[in-house]
């Protein structure tokens, strides 16, 4: 299944803000395994949903932001820490990117392995993001060398694109909820959706949604027919930048358009805002991806 088709599923996941690790599994976990060790028994378990593996590939630098890998893998043992691990709480194991003496490794650490400590940081949508630390933690080597880095680049591009699609679905449903609300909520003896100021704001959200849908669909379709990882990464950045911009605007304006009840925990619309916050921050927000996109454009030239 290509990204265009995977995007359709991700959009549906986004529409119902399902707490399922679909994008992270399809994009990252499977994305790494199918490229590096397609015959590993965990592949089948992941596909059937029997097992969930979280991917630990990022690390926190001295100022809190992401940094290069310093987590080490030597003699079958892991040491160091990893950050922003989605689905850490429910995972049976972790796919960990680590540096060995002669380059990068992808290794598998079981959830209950010795020397593994997990700190879960609660996210706006109620999910948890894991901070892992390893101290002589035993782990199984899955792959090593430049292939690991290449597979990671591709898997991150895929996951970024699918997260964009998930945000598109989320925005779509959030706007539907807004439309239902402004058509039924009455003030001054009229539905508030009959006031022009409300109408024009909702129209702007609608245009934002349509542009995001068209842009993300096009980017994913082009990624499917593109082999160059740099161009695929640039397309993924385009998709995520657009999807985050749209989702932020739509979910935040949605709260305003609901008025006071939008700020309560009683209405579904708040769930969309919270999920959008988490999905936007994960794998980079719009400002971050615009920067990557621009740098790639400078490097690759205008024609791609």
């Amino acid at each position, binding site marked *: 299944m290509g990204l265009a088709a995977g995007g359709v599923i991700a959009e549906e996941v986004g529409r119902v803000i399902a707490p399922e690790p679909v994008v992270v599994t399809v994009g990252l976990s499977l994305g790494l395994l199918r490229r590096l060790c397609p015959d590993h028994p965990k592949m089948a378990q992941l596909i059937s949903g029997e097992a969930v593996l979280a991917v630990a590939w990022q690390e926190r630098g001295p100022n809190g932001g992401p940094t290069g890998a310093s987590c080490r893998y030597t003699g079958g043992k892991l040491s160091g820490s990893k950050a922003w691990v989605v689905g850490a709480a429910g995972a049976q194991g972790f796919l960990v990117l680590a540096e060995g003496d002669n380059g990068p490794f992808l290794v598998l650490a079981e959830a209950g392995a010795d020397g593994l400590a997990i700190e879960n940081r609660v996210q706006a949508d109620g999910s948890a993001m894991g901070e892992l630390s390893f101290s002589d933690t035993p782990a199984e080597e899955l792959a090593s060398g430049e292939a690991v880095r290449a597979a990671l680049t591709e898997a991150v591009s895929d996951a970024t694109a699918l997260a964009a699609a998930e945000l598109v679905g989320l925005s779509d449903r959030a706007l539907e909820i807004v439309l239902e609300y402004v058509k039924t909520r009455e003030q001054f003896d009229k539905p508030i959706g009959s006031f022009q100021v409300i109408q024009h704001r909702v129209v702007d959200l609608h245009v934002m949604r349509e542009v*995001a849908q068209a842009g993300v669909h096009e980017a994913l379709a082009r990624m499917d027919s593109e082999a160059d990882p740099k161009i695929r990464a640039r397309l993924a950045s*385009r998709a995520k930048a657009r999807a985050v911009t749209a989702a932020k605007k739509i979910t935040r304006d949605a709260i305003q358009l609901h008025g006071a009840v939008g700020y309560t925990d009683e209405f579904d619309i708040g769930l969309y805002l919270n999920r959008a916050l988490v999905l936007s921050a994960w794998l980079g927000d719009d400002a971050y991806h615009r920067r990557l*996109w*621009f740098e790639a454009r400078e490097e690759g030239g205008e024609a791609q």
Partner: protein
Amino acid sequence: MTDWNAMTDEEFRKEVRQFFETEYPEELRHLPHRPKFAEIEHWHRKLYAKGWVAPAWPTEYGGMGLDAAKLLIFYEEQQRWGVNRGRDMGVQMVGPLIIKFGTQKQKDYWLPRILSCEDIWCQGYSEPGAGSDLANLRTRAEIDGDDFVINGQKIWTTMAHDSTHIFMLVRTDPKTPKKQQGISFLLVPMDQPGIEVRTIRTLSGETEFCEVFFDNARTPRENLVGELNKGWTMAKALLSFERIFIGSPSLAQNALGQLESFARGRGAFDDPVFRDRFAQAALDVEDHAALYARFADQLKRGETLGADVSMLKIWVTECFQRITELMIEAAGPDGGTIGPLQVGNVSVDVLASFYKARPTTIYGGSNEIQRNILSKAVLGLPG
């Protein structure tokens, strides 16, 4: 006669591109203003000899008979090469109306004269009290023997000072319950004592717009197109297809290219804030093009475009404005300077672009009107 529609899209595109690239006069590429007919007459003669003046008209009336897909390609190539549309009100507006609603006699007389540019047309719709609320128009036409006698005023009439004829919406029945009723569509020769044209100078210093005053001007009754008092429905019937063009990406794409070369020359990309705003604008243009392609595909499949096509115009015109505003920022202290600014071997007229972008959110149905349309016709928001 060539059956263009039988060609593949690629063959057709190649043919059109080649003709423009070899035949279009270099000095007329990307003209920054609307030309008078004399300025582009030599190009019109070439188009006329080729039989390409009216791409959308059926072949029986001297058009190319292009289907929607081919028509879109034709216009895309035209914009790509910076080919001026010429004085095309006759071809774009009056011709299709006469073809659809006119009598055989009207077709035989007017259509060949439109193609040859023997008659050059301007559009008399807006009035001082009828802009966004066009149906509020008050210019009267009363029957007097074999003529209509016209009194009133039109405004924003593009290039009226360089036109031989005006097609106009006039009130022929002032007593109807709804103001959309009682409006008729008339063809009127401009060379007569009852018509006075005054040009309006715009912020950019151009004089493309005019006011046209009617003081007992006359036109024969046979110059009524369609039924008396049915002009409003007819004029609206024409809009469906044209609406995609007003939202085409080309204006913003061209401006973005200008912005990029200007900003590079000026070193504006050294500033991370500018880089981000440029990236935003560039992505806005790219994603708009994706949305445009979706509507274009709809046309190519033979579907009629709905009211939602309005969103293309809203997005692209506002984006165009932001791009020209970024040019001014990149110009720094030169941002208020009239005329071309030289950077390296590139010369960019920053203010001309800025001014050109201003009216795009006003004309063709202001963006506020477009939002009203989307709100009611697409989102179904109440009254």
